[in-house]
Structures are given as C-alpha cells and as structure tokens.
C-alpha cells in the first residue's frame, strides 16, 4: 500500500514540477486528435494513439506497482516517462501548425509563436537550467588536484591520497594515477553500487575523523601515515613542532587547503 501511495505521489510531483511541458504535450495531443485529416494526417493520428497508449501505461499505477515489486526498478517516477516520445509529438504539432499557414507572414508568425511557446514552457532563456546546483566548490579544488597530480612522478607514477570529500570526489576522474584510501562511494550510496566490497570499520572511522580535520590535523596526519598515504590535503596547518610537522613536507598552500607530501624523518 505504501508503495502505491508513493507512486501516486510521484505522479502528482511530476505534474506539479513539470506541468508546463506536460501541458504542452497534452495540448499537442489534443490538436492531433481534433485537427482535420488534411492537417495531421494518418501518421499524426497514429502518433497520437501510440503516445496516449504509452501515457496510459505510464500512469497506470497498478501496472507500475507490479513492475516495481517484481524487478525493483522505477524508484523515480520520471524514469517511466522517458518512454513517451513527448518532444517528437510537440515538435510534430509545431511543424503542422506552421504548415497550416497559407501566407509567408503568417508562417513566420506561427514559427515564432511556437518557438516562444516552447521557450516559455521551459527555461525562457537557454542555458538557464539548474546548472548552479552542480557547480563544484571553486577553482581551488582544481588547483589542489593539479598540485597533487604533479607529485605523482616522485612516487613512480602512482600515489595514495587522503583529502577532504570535495577533493576525493573528483580525484579519480581527474587522474587515474591517484589512488584513494576511500572514495566517493563512502558518503554517496548512489556511487559505485556495482561493487560488492564494503569498507572496513577502521576506514569508516578515518572518514569520520577526516570530516573534522581542521580540528585535529596532527591526528589525521598520523592516521594517513599509518595507511601509507603519500599525499595529504588538510584544511588546517600541522603543528610546527610536532612529529607530524616534520614528517609531512608542505608542498603548496591554496586558499582553504594545504597540500603535504610524506617524506618521513629526513
């Protein structure tokens, strides 16, 4: 029962957030159904029928529930909506509307109106999607990764890194020569779901310690040494007089981060 309620909620959510494009699709379908044969033709009617059947399938909650229970697929409702050729229907109707016009002026007017209609149903201006949400911390992360990558040659082309999450998140994609004690699958359950291995408890504790590295940098550096890390990125400097301060050589200071590499007791 709970799953059915969740699915219905997903349906309502999809309508609420993307109502304008769903509305545009419904308008297009209405046009295809109502328009005289000479405008939309048999193919238009067939497209409308195919789309309506697909929509009925997608919005048929018991059917989706059955799929969900047997395969476990479909936690996000919109995944089912990808089967509907929504943009093809909208574009098809826009073309038909333009072609219905007899004069050049009305053709151009309809063309503009359709483009404006599509724009107003979407983001109004292009390149205005939820991009900001995905922007990474800042350029400093990139600089840290370049600095870490440059240390590789000192360690035979591969090094082991321990760093704050935002650095680790991109490190392996930036350079395959950077190995990590733990990766982004530690804190993001969606990442690397294919892997059967799990992190041992001591690495989970290290991860928790790393979250507060700015409070205990020396302790984190000690752990990093124990795990055999070659490079360490901290958000706070190591104590000058401590053993860790002597074993880890400062490579570069970047606003918000300090990059160290392990040299031992030289």
């Amino acid at each position, binding site marked *: 029962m709970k799953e059915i309620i969740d699915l219905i909620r997903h349906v309502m959510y999809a309508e609420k957030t993307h109502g304008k494009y769903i509305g545009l699709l419904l308008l297009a379908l209405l046009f295809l159904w109502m328009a005289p044969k000479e405008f939309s033709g048999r193919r238009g009617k067939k497209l409308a*029928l195919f789309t309506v059947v697909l929509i009925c399938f997608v919005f048929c909650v018991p059917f989706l529930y059955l799929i969900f229970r047997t395969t476990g697929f479909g936690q996000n409702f919109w995944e089912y*909506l990808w089967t509907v050729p929504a943009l093809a229907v909208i*574009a098809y109707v826009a*073309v038909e509307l333009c072609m219905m016009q007899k004069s050049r002026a009305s053709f151009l007017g309809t*063309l503009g109106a359709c483009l404006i209609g599509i724009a107003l149903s979407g*983001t109004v201006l292009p390149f205005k999607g939820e991009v900001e949400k995905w922007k990474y911390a800042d350029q400093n992360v990139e600089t840290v990764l370049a600095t870490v990558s440059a240390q590789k040659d000192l360690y035979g082309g591969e090094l082991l890194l321990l760093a704050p999450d935002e650095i680790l998140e991109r490190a392996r994609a930036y350079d395959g020569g950077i*190995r990590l004690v733990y990766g982004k699958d530690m804190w993001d359950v969606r990442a690397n779901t294919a892997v059967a291995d799990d992190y041992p408890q001591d690495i989970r504790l290290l991860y928790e310690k790393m979250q507060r590295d700015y409070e205990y940098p020396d302790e984190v550096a000690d752990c990093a040494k124990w795990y055999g890390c070659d490079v360490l990125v901290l958000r706070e400097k190591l104590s000058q007089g401590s053993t860790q301060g002597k074993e880890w050589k400062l490579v570069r200071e970047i606003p918000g981060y300090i990059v160290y590499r392990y040299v031992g007791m030289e």
Partner: protein
Amino acid sequence: MIGIFLVLVLPFAVGMIWYWILGKEKKDWVLIYLYGSLTMMAAAGIVAMPAIKLRLSFGCYRILALGLMFMLGAAGMVLFVQSGFKAKDNWRIQLHTEKNSGWAWGGVLVVFLLLSSCFFQYVPAAKEDMTAETIHTTVRTDTLYEYNAATGELLTLGIYPQDKLVTLPLFYSLFYSLGPQGQQLSMRHFLYEFVPVWILLLNFLVFWKWGESLFLGQKREKLRLPLFLCFYGAANLFGDYLFITFSYKLLHQTWTGETVFVTVLLPLLALQIFDMMRGEKSVTEWWQDKIMRRKLVPPVLCILTGIFCAPWRETIVLCAVVLAAGAVTAVIWRKQYERDN
C-alpha cells in the same frame, strides 16, 4: 586520428551489414551510421562478457573487440560492393533540399551547435557517476572490472554479476586508450565534451528518422523535416532541467549509459515499433511478408545494446513498456482501419 576514424568512418562500414540483414534496396546513410554505431557498441559488449569472465587483460580485450569491429566493417564493405554501389539510384539522398529550405537546415545547424556548446560550458553532473573513474582504472590497471574504480584498489569480492553487463565504460576505454592521453586529451575533454557531442549526433539522427517517418510523402516534406528537428532541438534547449523528457540527461549527463539508452536506444526502439504498425495488414499478412519479418531484427539490436548501456532491469522494463504499448496501439489501429474500410 584513429579515434576519429573509429567514430566517424567505421560505423558506416559496419552499418552496411544491416542492409543485407534488412534486405533493403535503397541505402540510407542516417540508418547506416546509426545501426553501425549501435552494432559497434553491442560488439564491444559481446566481447567484454567472456573477457571479464576469463579475466583477460584490457589490452587483450582491446585487440579482440577492435578486431571484431574491423571484421564487421570489412564484411559490411564486401556486402556494400556486392550490392552494387555503382548504381547511383540505389542511394537515397537524405539531405533533402527544397527551394527556400536552406534557412531551415541552417536553423538545425544552429540548434545543434547551441546544444553542443552546453557541453563546453556546463559543469558535468558527475557526482554519483563513475564512468570517468572506471575508464581511468581500466586503462591504467590493464584489467577489466577487477579494481574498485572509486579508490583504485584491488577488489576482494568483485563486482556484482549483473553490473558486469554494463560494458559501455569499456567501450569508451577502447577509444580513450587509442587517443593521446594526459596533457593533450584529458578525461574532461574526452568524456564530458567529445563523447557528448557524438551522442547528441546519434540522438539527432534518431529524431531525423522520426521526422522522416512522420512526414514521408507529405506535402513540402523537405521543409517539414528540418523544421521538426529545429523544434525538437529548441525543446531540448529550453527544457534542460526536465527529467520527464530526458533533456536534463541529454545535456548534463550525456556520457552515461543510461543516457545513451534513454536518448538514443529507447526513441529508436519506439520508432521501429511505430513504423511496424501497418493498419492495412493483418498479423498473418505481416508475418508472411519477408521484408516486414526482417524488421524485427533492429529492435533486438536496440535491446541488446541497451543491456550493455544501462542496468538490465531498467532496459528490460522500459523496452517492455514500449513493446507492450506498441502491441496495444497496433491492435487498436487495425480495428480502426477495419471499421473505416
């Protein structure tokens, strides 16, 4: 150069095989390129399955996969020569031109370039995605799915068997390992800029075929097709935050296997099913027609390639929804046809 050859030239050669399979007389370069590209993806996946099981090295897999692709390409070229490439009439020239339709094709180009520019200015939404890490790990360790891509460490328990089916990252690795790595071609340029442009091209070609299917034989068909592509592109451009129409995935997570499945394979499958519905033919008549029977093969290619791109449950469920909807539509359409006549 080798990568460009593999992406732009080899699919044409491989795609020729499909003209022999489908028994078509007229050659259509859009379909040749599309089917050729999908066949290459499927071939890489088919080789990957035993290679992973036998724990072959990536180098060995590369030789086998590229070898199979080149063999398919050679076979395609032989079939192409045999089918009589000299007969110019056999070629269906797809770039429709009509007086005063040049501006519409210009519009298609502008929309395509605007969409492509998204890949160069958007920050890729790769927070939970592991494709780049998997490519790096595969090429660097010379193994197939034996190391944890998130850390670069050797796996003890390994990867779940069903996830070993998703071999698209290995297909990308083939191309990445052939190109100049490091300073000249970073993963960012390869995976988040070049690959998306190629997938966007495949997506546009699929909708090109949608347009052709919808407007074939209609008045001013040659103007309708570019207009259709312009509107389709604009809808993607202005709907880039939408999950329901796959535009978000097309512009922000283009390189992922799920996106390839949703933006290329699923619309192509829907188109193939849509094209198969002939109201004027009953199931028996349809089955007796050899050419129509052969049309069942491309959907199999789509589903097979889909299994290598996205998790199998997703592929099977979404393909089944499309196939079931197609079957229901065909029945209704046939009844309507019988009533009208």
